[in-house]
């Protein structure tokens, strides 16, 4: 599916870049990373699971903690947290794909996907922004 644009070779890339529909390989990477690393817990449509796993679709947490999300994904999270007025208290593991932590570029694409899907809307993130936020990750609780 996501290989459609990539698989066309040099000519195809030119064609892709000139087509607005193809422009978002980034989006595809975000969707792919989400399916691989997140959907098992948060659900195919970001719906979450009962009061065990918080939703991402329509989650107030995303906007309220926007700057902290790169660190949250990089480090994982545990302890009580409130999402849409519901208290959750489980463990979210650090995001890994193929046993590797996610680069700032991949985190950017993943967050842009999560923050602009299932009815979510947020300003697009840039890699620079995410890199800056990662350097400010708190070290406590490690």
């Amino acid at each position, binding site marked *: 599916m996501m290989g459609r644009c990539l698989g066309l070779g040099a000519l195809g890339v030119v064609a892709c870049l000139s087509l607005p529909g193809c422009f978002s390989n980034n989006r595809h990477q975000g969707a792919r990373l989400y399916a691989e690393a997140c959907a*098992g*817990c948060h*659900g195919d449509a970001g719906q979450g*699971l*009962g*009061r*065990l*796993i918080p939703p991402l679709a329509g989650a107030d947490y995303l906007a309220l903690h926007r700057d902290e999300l790169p660190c949250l994904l990089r480090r994982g999270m545990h302890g009580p947290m409130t999402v849409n007025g519901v208290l959750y208290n*489980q*463990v*979210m*593991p650090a995001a890994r794909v193929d046993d590797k932590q996610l680069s700032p570029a991949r985190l950017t694409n993943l967050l842009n996907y999560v923050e602009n899907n299932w009815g979510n809307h947020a300003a697009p993130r840039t890699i620079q922004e995410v890199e800056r936020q990662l350097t400010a990750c708190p070290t406590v609780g490690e």
Partner: protein
Amino acid sequence: MSNRFWLAPALAAALLTACSGPSADQAARLPILGERDVRPNPNGGPADTIFATAPAFAAVDQAGQPVTNQTFAGRAYITDFFFATCPGICPKMNGALLSVFKPYATDPRVAFVSFTIDPAHDSLPVLDDYAQRLGVTDAKRWHFVTTGHSATARDTVYGLAKGFFTAAQPDKEAPGGFAHNGTFALVDDQGHVRGLYDSLDANEVARLQKELPVLLAEIAERHPKATAAK
């Protein structure tokens, strides 16, 4: 690919049914899984076939009630193996089982049992909290059970997992410290395992949803009175 892989057991089941069914026009039957034993009949008649049954278990659920094979005598039940702090496949597995459970949430013909493979951590309050958070309020409908606190409780539950055709063992490399695969087992009113389903494959979960009513119909045939009383 995964489709093809799972077609094989489905096909085998269909063939088995076709060959061993008492009559060709009877409704489809699910196969009986596991080793079977054929005992020659001393009187010279047809040999007896002894079908495998699910392993015996004695556990306690989130409400503190004992749960054994007898709890489900005359009824169907579905099992899985999980642990409350599982960062790997459990949310997806129990999320899938929740979708199977919902239409049967108040149907006494089938019950659900989730065994913790981490009995040291998953005390009754932890199991109760997990059930509540998943949205399961009636422990009698979906039991979240532990094999207890004894030193052997863990080995007991690993053995049970094997008996229900799934794998569970400690593994430092695996997320959360346990390796296990998320197989659901569907067990009939006589304790025979009648279906195994990979919880991580949506097609397999759909197959369980299709096969459960087939089994319930078979059980109803065996217990006409119980159904009439209902």
